[in-house]
């Protein structure tokens, strides 16, 4: 395996921040469940009552997993974190594998290295090893953090081990996906769909026909039953599947040509539709996929929150702190809960807004702007079309969240009357989202190299919403976040003034960015 270690060393170096980010995220996911459950309920009786209510909630079970020992902290951690944890390590594995296999091959960089004295499988093996190691790191730290909490040691170790094995399975399937198609995007599509199917199988299985859960690696992981009668043998299933998938990937790798996939690339239309050649039509065509994807995402998130219905009180228990958190605005507990849910949906949706606002920079970085601007298309119109797409996309993504929320709520309570108000409530968040888009535009116009700093604006918003009041941060600091000024609908009633002011700020940022862009060099 000449060259494998050299490859591996480069990969580990290039990925170190990725490792750190994913690991921190997953560990926090598990550990924060333990902390929040512990703080939420003051007496065991209260805990039992909440657990009983959760066990009866089909939507919750479909989202999280089989309800076991929900009146214990361990049971709650496993229930609330394991399905998402498995999905997250699946995504991590997919990206780590993809970026060193198919993406490198597609870009042609791999060819350069492969022509040197390395064995044919070197990069594949190094990418595999890197992803396996990352999963070990995540699993080990999850176990450690839970043991330190403290929760039962063998069960906590099983939680981490099962997670690592889940990650290994998805490493194997991602490796297979990388052999199937010649494009990185479709590889991510296939590997992502595999994770989604695994998640969906166990969701349907946990709610009804439990044999379906046994078709899903995530089901096997949850079938290890940590903190509720631990058994190790489902872990062996995970290990076997991971090995089988990896083996299959190696066989497929040996049977295909460099640069191609086993599936031939599909041809597309040989002519452009009439709309493509307009500034707006073109910009929409580029961002259509992300808009649809994010809208579906926020809609599902909304559905999940909405399906809690008006049962909020039981879930939160009677502890004063939790009620304080959700009843900040002074409204009812249910409204308080949905105000927070809408804020979360809005923050997630702002992820679309920022990435969409940064799209022009990506286009410029990848050298695709020059050819366009050398035609009759002016800079101003090109960028303006991108702005319009970002604004329209933001509205759609937010409305998707509101609609999901309203529908979920209607399904559980039978009351469809909240769909309209929820739509309006989420729409209020267009204003702070667009402030972030304006910031991205301004940076793009003035300091394109630093445009990604706009993500920092979103980070600030997240921190201020969740921790600002708790940490008693000074008002001016909280005021830097555009979200701080907006009324927490529906707990508070909507206020026009901050909404309009935020929109004006967004327009000013965006306009200044436009002017700066018209004056600078384009590369």
């Amino acid at each position, binding site marked *: 395996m000449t060259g494998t270690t050299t490859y591996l060393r480069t990969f580990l170096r290039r990925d170190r921040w990725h490792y750190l980010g994913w690991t921190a995220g997953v560990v926090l996911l598990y550990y924060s469940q333990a902390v929040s459950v512990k703080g939420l309920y003051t007496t065991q009786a209260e805990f039992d009552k909440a657990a009983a209510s959760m066990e009866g909630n089909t939507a919750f079970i479909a989202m999280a997993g089989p309800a076991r020992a929900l009146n214990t902290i361990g049971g709650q951690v496993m229930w609330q974190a394991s399905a998402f944890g498995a999905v997250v390590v699946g995504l991590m594995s997919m990206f780590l594998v993809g970026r060193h296999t198919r993406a490198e091959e597609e870009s042609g960089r791999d060819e350069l290295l492969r022509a040197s004295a390395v064995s044919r499988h070197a990069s594949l093996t190094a990418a595999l090893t890197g992803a396996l190691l990352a999963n070990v790191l995540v699993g080990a730290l999850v176990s450690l953090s839970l043991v330190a909490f403290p929760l039962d040691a063998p069960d906590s170790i099983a939680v981490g081990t099962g997670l690592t094995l889940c990650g290994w399975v998805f490493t194997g399937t991602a490796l297979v996906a990388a052999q199937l198609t010649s494009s990185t995007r479709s590889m991510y599509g296939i590997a992502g769909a595999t994770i989604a199917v695994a998640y969906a199988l166990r969701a349907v299985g946990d709610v009804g026909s439990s044999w379906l859960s046994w078709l899903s690696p995530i089901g096997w992981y949850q079938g290890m039953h940590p903190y509720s009668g631990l058994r190790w043998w489902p872990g062996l299933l995970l290990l076997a599947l991971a090995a089988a998938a990896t083996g299959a990937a190696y066989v497929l790798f040996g049977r295909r040509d460099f640069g191609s996939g086993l599936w031939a690339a599909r041809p*597309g239309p040989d002519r452009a539709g009439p709309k493509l050649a307009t500034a707006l039509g073109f910009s929409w065509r580029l961002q259509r996929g992300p808009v649809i994807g994010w809208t579906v995402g926020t809609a599902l998130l909304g559905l999940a929150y909405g399906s809690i219905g008006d049962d909020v009180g039981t879930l939160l228990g009677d502890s004063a702190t939790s009620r304080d958190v959700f009843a900040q605005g002074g409204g009812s507990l249910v409204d308080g809960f949905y105000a927070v849910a809408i804020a979360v949906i809005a923050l997630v949706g702002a992820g679309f807004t920022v990435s969409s606002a940064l799209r022009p920079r990506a286009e410029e970085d990848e050298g695709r702007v020059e*050819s366009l601007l050398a035609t009759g298309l002016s800079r101003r119109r090109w960028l303006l079309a991108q702005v319009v797409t970002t604004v329209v996309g933001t509205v759609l993504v937010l409305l998707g969240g509101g609609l999901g929320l309203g529908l979920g709520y209607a399904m559980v309570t039978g009351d469809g009357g909240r769909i309209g108000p929820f739509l309006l409530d989420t729409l209020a968040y267009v204003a702070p989202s667009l402030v972030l888009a304006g910031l991205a535009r301004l940076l793009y116009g003035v300091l394109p190299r630093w445009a990604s700093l706009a993500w920092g604006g979103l980070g600030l918003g997240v921190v201020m919403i969740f921790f600002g009041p708790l940490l008693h941060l000074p008002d001016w600091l909280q005021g830097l976040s555009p979200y701080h000024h907006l009324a927490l609908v529906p707990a508070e009633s909507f206020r026009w003034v901050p909404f309009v002011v935020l929109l004006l700020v967004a327009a000013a940022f965006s306009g200044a960015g436009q002017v700066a862009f018209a004056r600078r060099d384009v590369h």
Partner: protein
Amino acid sequence: MVTVTEAIVDISGLTKTFGATRALDGLDLTVTRGEVHGFLGPNGAGKSTTIRVLLGMLRKDSGEVRLFDGDPWGSAADLHRRLAYVPGEVNLWPNLTGGQVIDLLGRLRGGLDEERRRELIERFELDPTKKGRSYSKGNRQKVALVAALASDVELLVLDEPTSGLDPIMESVFQEYVERFRAEGGTVLLSSHILAEVERLCDRVSLIRAGRCVESGTLGELRHLTRTSVVAELARPVAGLAELPGVHDLDVEGNRVMFEVDTARVDAAIGLLHGAGIRSLTATPPTLEELFLRHYGDALPAVGEADAS
């Protein structure tokens, strides 16, 4: 030779710096209507920077730049409808097909000649249904070339357009450039494929380190350089070494080899004539030699057809 001609591109004293790097340092360039103008220079001489200033992508620091007698920075989009540009590095959108990109660029320029589009796709053997991500470098270049050559424009700005093409496709390209010129079009062709420049270009500008070092027709440029002469004579010739403009003289009996400044050829041949010429070969300098003379120290691999 004074003819009144319309300047399509008129650049004088153009400077452009990137931080501490002076990319263009008082560059002059004139392209007149109806000519194919070769723009030559080694990598990093400033060819692409000049073209980007000309297209209004980069802002000039100082100097005068006119395109169709307009300001390429201020009224870029209007001027761009009259030209088509093929960059040296063509990047396509991964999920749009070649056919879609051809239509997109063509329509944004104000329309495509449908008949010519079909013909070019066939001649360049391009599959327009493939997605951008699956094209090779050469095929990406073909997409941009088809879009440019099928557009109804007055000026083609081509920045090393054939660096990824095979020789057959290169000759297809040359054929279409010649046809474009025959129809009255103007071309600014940046290249370092000298055979291509020699075949296509009416005039040539050589640039080095951000300045134009030589400009003129190939004939005029050759005039500034030396012709190699090999002659067999009836008897030894005297006085050749003393003749101004003669270099690298090598005498082997009655056979002489030397180089002579092209302006002095007449005097040198006169001397040879006196000694009775048995055979004579006089070779005008190739563009490659011209190039080497200007850039010799900075150019390791002249004549390499493919830079990639």
